[in-house]
């Protein structure tokens, strides 16, 4: 670890009576990816807007590469790349023209064309780069948008819900792209609603809820905190009386069938649950073994993890 590139201390943001961020502290080590998880309205975008100089906080200290976002905004701006929830592109220009425009605005001059061409080749955008952005699919726009945020070779890249609304294929392409960037030494701050996304990309995760950080850790640590697998079985209601132990939840489906749920510590224990159902001679009509979702993380954190 070569020190923190992003430092946030006691950050407060208020919108009227609403406390959007209430005392957030975090550091992002150089060359790592921080995943910021949270539901809609948790404060993820507000955090990104403060970090990218778009929003003035009510209180707190925020610095990027040692430069304060309030007093040295232009130094910060020359070091960051931002991809927001809406692709920040001109729909009437082609992808290439958009990239060249941003290149010219950050002072690349004639080199803007070369940088755009390099990025188009590197991000494999050749087949879409000369189409107008307005005619592109959401996934293509996002890729051009990310290329636009990379024109200035930023040391910190902010991605605000970069895959929201993308299909699984486009999402996968984007994940590979971000993984490549961090390999090259870029520090990334990523907000997402998807645990899977944070799991895939982030070295560290923080969980925001109602403007507060309710948890932080590596993906593995967070999952351990939440617990193991949930086994959900659909069985004949008539079979239920043969069950030798009580499920965590029982729901009648059609009257003839019921759904029973067991919370288990890990995959091994989940397997034991299934074996025990067979031992009790219960016919399993349908079976689902699920890992904890972000909802589970929140359920866990808001009931037990209020004071992490």
């Amino acid at each position: 670890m070569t020190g923190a590139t992003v430092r946030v201390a006691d950050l407060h943001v208020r919108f009227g009576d609403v406390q959007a961020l209430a005392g957030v502290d975090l550091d992002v080590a150089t060359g790592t990816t921080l995943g910021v998880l949270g539901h809609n309205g948790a404060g993820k975008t507000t955090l990104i807007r403060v970090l990218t100089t778009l929003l003035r906080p009510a209180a707190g200290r925020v610095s990027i590469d040692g430069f304060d976002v309030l007093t040295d905004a232009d130094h910060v701006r020359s070091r960051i790349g931002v991809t927001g929830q809406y692709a920040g592109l001109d729909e009437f220009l082609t992808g290439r023209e958009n990239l060249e425009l941003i290149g010219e605005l950050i002072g690349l001059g004639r080199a803007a064309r070369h940088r755009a061409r390099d990025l188009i080749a590197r991000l494999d955008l050749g087949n879409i780069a000369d189409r107008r952005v307005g005619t592109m699919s959401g996934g293509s726009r996002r890729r051009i948008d990310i290329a636009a945020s990379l024109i200035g070779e930023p040391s910190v890249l902010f991605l605000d819900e970069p895959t929201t609304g993308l299909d699984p294929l486009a999402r996968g392409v984007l994940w590979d792209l971000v993984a490549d960037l961090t390999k090259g030494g870029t520090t990334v701050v990523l907000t997402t609603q998807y645990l899977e996304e944070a799991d895939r990309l982030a070295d560290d995760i923080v969980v925001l809820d109602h403007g507060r950080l309710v948890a932080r850790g590596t993906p593995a640590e967070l999952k351990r905190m939440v617990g193991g697998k949930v086994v959900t079985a659909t069985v004949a209601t008539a079979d239920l009386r043969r069950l030798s132990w009580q499920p965590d939840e029982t729901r009648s489906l059609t009257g003839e069938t019921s759904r029973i749920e067991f919370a288990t510590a890990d995959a091994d224990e989940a397997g034991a649950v299934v074996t025990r159902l067979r031992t009790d001679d219960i016919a399993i009509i349908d079976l689902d073994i699920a890992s904890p979702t972000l909802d589970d993380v929140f359920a866990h954190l808001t009931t037990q993890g209020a004071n992490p």
Partner: protein
Amino acid sequence: MTTPLTQRSTPNVDFSSNGASSRKQLGALLKRSLRTTARVPQMLMFSLTMPMAMLLLFSQVFRGVSDSAQFPRGMSYIDYLTPAMLAVATVMAGTNVGVASAIDHTNGLSDRFRTLAMPRSIPGIARTINEMIFTVARAALLIATAAVLGFRFRGDGLDIVTGMIVLIALAGSMSALFGRIGDHLRRPDVVQFAGMMVMMPFMFVSSAFAPLDTMPGWMRTVANGNPVSRTADALREAVAGTTTAGTIAAALLAAGAMWALVVAIPAGRP
């Protein structure tokens, strides 16, 4: 208690020192505005084609106005109407600036610009210069159309120059006004509608289509201060070759006052 973090002494290169000058940024954004405007048919229609259609229609439908007692003697209706259409079309096209600014807000481009080391006013200035350029193009098209309908210019080269300066000043103040509306309302459809509501009184509570003497007293007062009236009057003098410094000054002053008033309003959310 926002206390800035003490700046770490850093060996990092100061990127802002080799950043773009504001002049180059303005040039890049102007190129973008020109491209964009040329690629959006509805904007081009509103800016260039519709004023021509209005000139054509009005010159036929309302030419009876020239028979009224208050109408300036010895002037043909097309000579009266053409300067007015030049001024009014500038107001109409100004609404495009508001829509363009709102589009930048909805598609996130305006946020992207704000995360670059660039003065916040540059995109608005680029849109205004773009609109000024289109104002010159529109004037050429309108005058050519008017010439077919019998319009005759009786002024000299100086009248052309002062007339264009007055018209461009009006374009600047209207761009600033509608740009601010776009920055505040932020949704293209809402801005389009609000633009119409603002545009109407500028167009009609003015000396553009009817002499001020024909209006009720209160309206005459408002119309007198309307930059569109001042511009239309100055252009009519230019067309007749009777330009006076006072009329030119009044037109520039009205447009300048309008601009100053708009610029005094903050650009929007922090």
